[in-house]
C-alpha cells in the first residue's frame, strides 16, 4: 500500500498529508481510477447499498443506545420512552428496526448475485468466505438486537434459539447456562446481549474492510463471468460507477424510508409489542422474516437418525435440526469447492441456472413454511424443500460441475458489449 510510486497533489494541504500518510492516493487508486468491468448491471449495486445500511445501523444504534436501558425491569419501558418522549425517538427506532430488514434484503440480493454469476469461484474464494462470515455476524447481531426491547417475541425467541445449543451432546446444558448467565433468559442475559449487540457491528465493519480489500486484489466479477483482459474491457470506477451506485442507492433508500415512515410495522409481529413474561409463552413463536427459511429447516428434522427398527439413535431429532440449520449457512463456505465448473456465469450454464432459480423458489417456500404452525402439510412441505436445499449443494452442483456443457462464452467483455450493440442497431 505504502511503498508504490505516488503522484503529487496540487493542493498543498492534501499533499502535506498524503506525503506522510497516503490516504488520498489510496482513495484515488481504489475508488477513483480503479479499473472496473464496463458491463455491470444493477445487481452490482447491492454491495455499496449494504455498506450504507451498515453505517445507518451504527448511527441510529449509537443514538438509541444513549436512551435505552439494558435491565430486565426497565428495558421495555425505556423503549416506550424512546417512542413517546425522546425527540425523534420514534423515527430512530423505526429506522433501526426496519433498517435491519432492509440490510438483510440488500445482503440476500448480494449473495444471490454472487451465486448467479459465479463470483465465489477462483480467485475470489476468500472474498466469498469473508462475505459468508459477515452474513453470520449479521444474523447474530440482529438476533441479539431483537431481544433488547424485552418483548414477548424477543424474550421467547431468545429462549428458543439459545436452547438450540442444549442439543450439543454432553456440554449442552452447561453451555446454555453459560450463555444465559443464569437458569433462564433473564437480566444477566439481556445485559450481555446488549454489550454484544453494541460490539458486533464494529466487528462486521472490520470484516467488511477485509472483504473490500480482497475485492480490490482480485477485482470485480461481472455478469459475463469473463475476466477483463485489456483496457477496453474496463472503465474507471469514478464517475461511472459512483453515479450508478448512487442512483441505485437512492432508489433503495426511498423504499426503506417509505416503509419506515408509512408502514413501520409491516415486518413486525404483535407479540413484539407486549412486555416479556417468562411465565407465559406466546401461542405461536415466529422469528423475524429474514430467519424464517432457516427456522423452517430447523423444524424440518422431526425424526431421529439411527438404525431403522432398532432403538439405536445416532442423532436425535433436536440435534439433527440444529445441525441442518447451521449446515444450511455453513455449506455456503465450501460452495467454491462444490462448484468446480470452469464457467462462472449462469448465463452460459442453463442447467445450473435452472437449479439455482429452483433453489431461490425453495428458499421462498421455506420462508413461507417457517411462518406456519408446525403441523400437517407444512411439516412435509418443509421437509421436501429442505431436501431440495441440500440436494442442490451436495448433489446437483457437484454433478453439474462435471457434466454440464456450457453454451459459448464470449471472447472478452468488450467483444460481448460490441456484439450486443450491433444487434440493437
Amino acid at each position: 500500500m505504502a511503498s508504490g510510486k505516488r503522484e503529487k497533489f496540487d493542493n498543498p494541504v492534501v499533499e502535506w498529508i498524503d506525503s506522510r500518510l497516503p490516504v488520498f492516493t489510496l482513495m484515488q487508486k481504489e475508488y477513483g481510477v480503479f479499473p472496473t468491468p464496463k458491463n455491470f448491471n444493477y445487481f452490482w449495486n447491492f454491495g455499496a447499498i449494504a455498506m450504507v445500511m451498515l453505517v445507518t445501523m451504527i448511527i441510529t444504534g449509537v443514538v438509541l443506545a444513549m436512551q435505552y436501558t439494558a435491565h430486565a425491569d426497565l428495558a421495555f419501558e425505556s423503549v416506550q420512552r424512546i417512542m413517546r418522549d425522546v425527540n425523534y425517538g420514534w423515527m430512530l427506532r423505526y429506522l433501526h428496526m426496519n433498517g435491519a430488514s432492509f440490510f438483510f434484503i440488500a445482503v440476500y440480493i448480494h449473495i444471490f448475485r454472487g451465486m448467479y454469476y459465479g463470483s465465489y469461484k477462483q480467485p475470489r474464494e476468500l472474498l466469498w468466505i469473508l462475505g459468508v462470515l459477515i452474513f453470520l455476524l449479521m444474523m447474530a447481531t440482529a438476533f441479539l438486537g431483537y431481544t433488547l426491547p424485552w418483548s414477548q417475541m424477543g424474550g421467547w425467541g431468545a429462549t428458543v434459539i439459545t436452547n438450540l445449543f442444549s442439543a450439543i451432546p454432553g456440554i449442552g446444558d452447561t453451555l446454555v447456562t453459560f450463555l444465559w448467565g443464569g437458569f433462564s433468559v433473564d437480566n444477566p442475559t439481556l445485559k450481555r446481549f446488549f454489550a454484544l449487540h453494541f460490539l458486533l457491528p464494529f466487528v462486521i465493519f472490520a470484516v467488511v474492510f477485509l472483504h473490500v480489500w480482497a475485492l480490490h486484489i482480485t477485482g470485480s466479477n461481472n455478469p459475463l463471468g469473463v475476466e477483463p483482459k485489456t483496457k477496453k474491457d474496463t472503465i474507471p470506477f469514478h464517475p461511472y460507477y459512483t453515479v450508478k451506485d448512487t442512483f441505485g442507492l437512492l432508489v433503495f433508500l426511498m423504499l426503506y424510508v417509505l416503509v419506515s415512515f408509512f408502514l413501520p410495522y409491516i415486518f413486525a409481529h404483535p407479540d413484539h409489542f407486549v412486555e416479556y413474561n417468562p411465565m407465559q409463552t406466546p401461542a405461536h413463536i415466529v422469528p423475524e422474516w429474514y430467519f424464517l427459511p432457516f427456522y423452517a429447516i430447523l423444524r424440518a428434522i422431526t425424526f431421529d437418525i439411527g438404525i431403522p427398527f432398532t432403538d439405536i439413535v445416532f442423532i436425535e431429532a433436536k440435534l439433527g435440526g440444529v445441525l441442518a440449520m447451521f449446515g444450511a449457512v455453513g455449506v455456503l463456505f465450501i460452495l467454491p469447492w462444490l462448484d468446480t465448473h470452469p464457467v462462472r456465469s449462469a448465463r452460459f450454464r442453463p442447467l445450473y441456472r435452472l437449479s439455482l432459480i429452483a433453489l431461490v423458489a425453495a428458499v421462498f417456500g421455506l420462508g413461507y413454511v417457517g411462518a406456519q404452525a408446525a403441523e400437517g402439510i407444512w411439516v412435509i412441505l418443509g421437509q421436501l424443500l429442505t431436501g431440495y436445499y441440500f440436494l442442490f449443494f451436495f448433489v446437483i452442483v457437484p454433478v453439474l460441475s462435471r457434466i454440464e456443457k456450457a453454451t459459448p462464452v464470449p471472447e472478452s467483455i468488450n467483444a460481448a458489449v460490441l456484439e450486443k450493440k450491433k444487434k440493437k442497431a
Partner: protein
Amino acid sequence: MATKAPSKPQQSETRRDFLYLTAGAFGAVGAASFAWPFIDSMNPAKDTLALATVEVDLSPIQVGQSAKVTWQGKPVFIRHRTPEEIARAEGVDVSALRDKQADADRVEKPEWLVMIGLCTHLGCIPLGQKPTDPKGDFDGWFCPCHGSHYDISGRIRKGPAPKNLAIPPYEFLNDTTLKIG
C-alpha cells in the same frame, strides 16, 4: 540439560526448535489461564445462584388441581394428581417410551407430580396447567411451539422433544410444605 557443546550446526537447530515449542506451549497455557476469568465471569453469579430454593405451601392445591411457581426464573409445575391419573401414569408400558422412565421414578409421592415446566425441545412452557388448556393427545401437557405431547407423568410421547419434563430436586418438609432446590 545439555552439557556438551553441539557438535553439528544441525543439532543446535533442533534445540532451538525445542525452545520455540516449549516457549509457545507455555505461552498458550498462560493465555488460556488468563482467558478463564473472562469466560467464567459470564457464568451465573453468586447472587443468581443464591436464589436456589423456594418453599411452597401445598394446602390450597386440591386433588385434580395444578399450580405454577417460579424457581430459578423457571416455572415449576405442581400437580395434585387424582387416583385415576396416577393409575394412568403407572399403567404405561415403559419400554415403548422415548425417554424410558417409570412413573415411580418421577415422583416422591404419587399424588404430587413436581416438574420443571419447560419443554425439553427448545424451552417453551407447555400448556395444560389450566383446566381450559389443550392437554395434547396423551391428556397431560402440550407444547404449542413445535407440537410436543406429554403424558400425565410429564413424559414425552409425541413430537420433537427428546426428554421427559425434568424433575427439580425437591423434598417434603412436612405434609403441606414443599421445598424446591
